[in-house]
């Protein structure tokens, strides 16, 4: 599974960081999301799924490879 972040849509809410701090971080100057792990391990996927569900900008996708 691969995580896709549509950066131009991101409104820097930080919800992904709350749901899955292992996979997401925020840029310090404007809070825009940073992807730390493009292919997170199985154990991190629940957190990523939550991030996908709560991201207010619908900017995160989890795609099957």
């Amino acid at each position: 599974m691969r995580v896709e972040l549509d950066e131009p849509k991101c409104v820097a809410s930080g919800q992904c960081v709350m749901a899955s701090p292992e996979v997401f971080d925020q840029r310090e100057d404007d809070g825009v999301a940073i992807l730390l792990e493009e292919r997170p391990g199985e154990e991190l996927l629940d957190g990523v799924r939550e991030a996908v569900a709560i991201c207010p900008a619908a900017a995160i996708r989890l795609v099957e490879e």
Partner: protein
Amino acid sequence: MADTLAGATPDAAPEVPEYPMPRDLRCPLAPPPALEPLRDEQPIAKVRIWNGSTPWLITRHADQRALLTDPRVSNDDHEPDFPHVNAHRAAIAPHTPKLITNTDAPEHTRLRRSVNAPFLVKRIEAMRPAIQKTVDDLIDTMLAGPNPADLLTALALPLPSLVIADLLGVPYKDHGFFQENSNRALDSSLTAEEASAASRALGQYMDTLFREKLDNPGDDVLSEMAGRVKAGEMAHQEAVNMGVAMLIAGHETTATMISLGTLALLQHPDQLALLRESDDPKFIAGAVEELLRYLSIVHSGLRRVAKEDIEIGGQVIREGDGILFDLHAANWDPQAFPESERLDLSRPARQHNAFGYGPHQCLGQNLARLELQVVYGTLYKRVPTLSLAAPIEQLPFNHTGTTYGVKCLPVRW
């Protein structure tokens, strides 16, 4: 024209309900009862607002999420048919500069990113010890004072006011002034004149303060914005308006969640006991989400306008039509939250719409969450005998503000 002639008598038109809708005073924490049949049978329905216009009302959780992230749905309140909350907002809209609250992407994205840094998850989390200390001190002071006391003035209001004043760099000694004028700027029972005077007073206050920060920057958000203004990344007026918006938005909402949340818990002693006995930060964080969902205090409906025709749920929302989103209706949608009328601190509630959804979702949500986690995780442990000092029927509920709450909450211990 032919349509009008063929359309029979005008009074054959279906009844269009008024919005906002009245609550059932016997269930003061539940959403207005008329929302339920609308959500079940007409989830995308026309309603009538204060100026006689008839925007669409969206009541289902899934429909709200689809539309609030739809780029054809706009927050541009300069549009002629934008469904304003009240006459005051309609009157000032044409003169209001571009703000994060009334712009769409890409302008909104630029403005919002320019004020986001202080609300980074890590920066907010770093405030936890200071907020814990403030909460402990306020509770100490309350317990040392007369019993019963008003929880609103003892804790619910001072905490968010102290926190937002500190974050922004606004002197807390002016809290009487900014609390009073923020409430007046949002109170739909006042005349447009009175509300405008309150917003003007806040604007002037912020402008003076901001000029001081330009000369003598400190370690606070206004000074950070002053830096951006000097660097040419932000206009002076934009920064002043942002400062006012954060000051207004930052305390009444959180104060309401503290007082109304406590009231809801006192009405549900089994749930209160779970919270009192839990030391699990995850449980406490979940309890905050559930109380946000259950109470959905922003009750005047989010306001938008369609920029193009939009088909949804068998209806066509036409370009230029106003759209309202009732957050309480969506947060009590049984399709999203089974047995939604039950306060259940153990349920997964994180997908509520209490902070809105889409690009305008609350800027201060991480800060509000932190304050609520600390209060809910501390107050009931420190004061296990906390109880209401007046019957719930006698509490003065505020039906006319942007948020629904109580004007005071007498408690004893």
